[in-house]
């Protein structure tokens, strides 16, 4: 008697009235990717970085006084050929390149694999996100990421009201984060609930057309065309993580 009614009570208590995530996912069939044309990227331009920081409330976190605690969802590194002798060094000086680094949104994300609470996960459309409501701050994802693309909020960062994008959250201390590919812009809907995607902030800000983000399965998208027409490289392809950020002319 006790067992039977207890089991019934348990079932009544644990079944949630909130339904399971619907089948009509707006993300189904998509595969978001990014293409970066290194040749078009101007060395002294940081418009995309500024736009990203403004959009995602990382202005103050990026300007952290301890540069190793600073948060860079998108950052720009300067690289050149390895210098063997002094004479070659002068040539190499001229051959410097600026490369934009963001989260690679891998198809096999090691960060999502190691997250003990599934706070880091890969969305149906391939974007790798962190659920900041769930992250416990173990930083295992940062260890696992082979690209050093993840950042941790070591301290609470005070964001000034005038710098704040009020529609986007900032982060509290103790959670990991990285580039979201501006998922909120890609998912945006209009008044009637129909999809009206906008391009990510960095792509919008880039005046040289060096950046493109879109659905790689959509044959009308810029990304699809670029990937079809150009030879692209990805970072550390040998690891098998299948990154979805592609570089032209690296």
């Amino acid at each position, binding site marked *: *008697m*006790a*067992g*039977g*009614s*207890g089991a*019934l*009570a*348990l079932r*009544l*208590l*644990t079944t*949630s009235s909130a339904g399971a995530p619907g089948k009509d996912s707006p993300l189904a069939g998509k595969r978001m990717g990014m293409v970066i044309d290194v040749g078009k990227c101007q060395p002294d331009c940081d418009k995309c970085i500024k736009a990203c920081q403004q959009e995602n409330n990382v202005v103050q976190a990026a300007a952290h006084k301890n540069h190793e605690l600073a948060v860079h969802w998108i950052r720009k590194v300067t690289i050149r050929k390895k210098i063997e002798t002094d004479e070659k060094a002068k040539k190499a000086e001229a051959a410097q390149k600026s490369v934009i680094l963001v989260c690679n949104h891998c198809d096999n994300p090691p960060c999502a694999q190691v997250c003990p609470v599934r706070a880091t996960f890969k969305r149906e459309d391939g974007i790798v996100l962190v659920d900041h409501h769930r992250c416990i701050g173990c930083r295992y994802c940062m260890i696992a990421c082979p690209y050093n693309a993840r950042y941790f909020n070591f301290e609470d960062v005070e964001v000034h009201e005038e710098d704040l994008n009020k529609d986007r959250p900032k982060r509290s201390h103790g959670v990991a984060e990285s580039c979201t590919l501006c998922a909120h812009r890609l998912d945006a809907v209009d008044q009637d609930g129909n999809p009206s995607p906008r391009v990510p902030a960095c792509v919008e800000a880039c005046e040289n057309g060096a950046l493109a983000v879109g659905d790689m399965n959509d044959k009308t998208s810029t990304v699809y065309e670029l990937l079809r027409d150009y030879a692209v490289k990805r970072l550390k392809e040998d690891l098998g993580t299948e990154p979805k950020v592609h570089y032209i002319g690296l």
Partner: protein
Amino acid sequence: MAKGDKTVETADRTSREKQEAGALVSPPAALADSRDGQPGWIDPDMDFIRVLSRQSGDSLKKCIQCGTCSAICELSPDPKPFPRKEMAWAVWGMKDRLLKDPDVWLCHQCNDCSTRCPRGARPGDVLAAIRQQSVARYAVPRFLARWANEPYCVPLLLGIPIALLTVVLYIGNSLGVPQPSRERIIFPFCNKLPHWLLNVSFAVVGILVLAAVVAGAMRFWRAMMIADGRDGAALPAKSPPARIVAALKIAVPVLWSIIAHDDFAKCTKTRLRFYSHLSVLFGFLALSLVAVWVVTAKVNPLIPDGLIYPFGFWHPWKLLANLGGVAILAGCLWMVVDRVRDNEHSGAFSDWTLIVTLLAVVVTGFIAEILHFVRLEPHRHVAYFTHLVFVLTLLMYLPYSKLAHIVYRTTALIYAEYSGRNGKNTARTAGREEES
């Protein structure tokens, strides 16, 4: 009059005093006194003897009627002291006699007698067993009291509250969204267990329990009256208001003495029993009061707030409830330690069930509270449901479990006061002074 430094010699002397006072109940006297005044007639209830023997570690066999127990008992009145006469009656299996005896309930089981007994019998445990039998005799309906004392009935006993609450849950679940009133907001702890439904079901059970308790107490009172030959005798005053005043005059000091633990304070063997019982009693009072407050909040004219429940952590009622929970937890744990450390304790089933149920109530309560503060759903709902099951168990079996002592002991103490049985100390003190 320092009683604390009482030695064996003085104990012997008081024992002699009691014998000289003619309080000794010798076996022939017991026989003569027995059933319906028929001299020499005795009808031993063998089952009763067997039950008592089982629950008191064969104390009955060991008793040699030396009277040490009666002599040293701090609570025993001088005329007809206990527990010696009860031991004698128990040996003879005089069930009827024992169950009508208010003295059985005057004992608070401090076990001073059990430790001092030269033969290692445990009169304290015998009286406890008799009390449980007494509860079973006067309970309404009786079969529930029988079940409540059988270990193999536990699944059934727990099953009834679980089933009842499952029905409540089922109704609550199918009701959909309850609309909270505009005036006073009460958030149910779990939306599937709305407050009003719980209130209704608990109130129904509560009224039944109250009826059972009152009926039991009245049966007990009448039995004591008949046994004392006071049949029909009432309070001295005639007019109803005067009778109420007279009744209050008797009841109020008794109730205060219960709350103040006057009788517990006299225990010398296990001094800390005073504190453990005190903390459990006050914890129980505090939690009952908080529960009553929450249940009646909708109609309470004293509340000026819009949001009534849940309470914040620093809310006076929440503080009181947490304090009460901690008090019961600490008191019960101390009782457990006390019983485990006392190797000879018989550990009667009814005794352990009460302690375990109380512990279960507070532990599940605290678990539900913690899970609520970390906002874990549905875990907190499951914890809450378990908590409610134990609360309902405690409430539902109040008239049949050891918890019934709340009713029967109070009744017996009031009866003792009413019948003048507690002239004890005055009489004894007077005798002592004369002697010196």
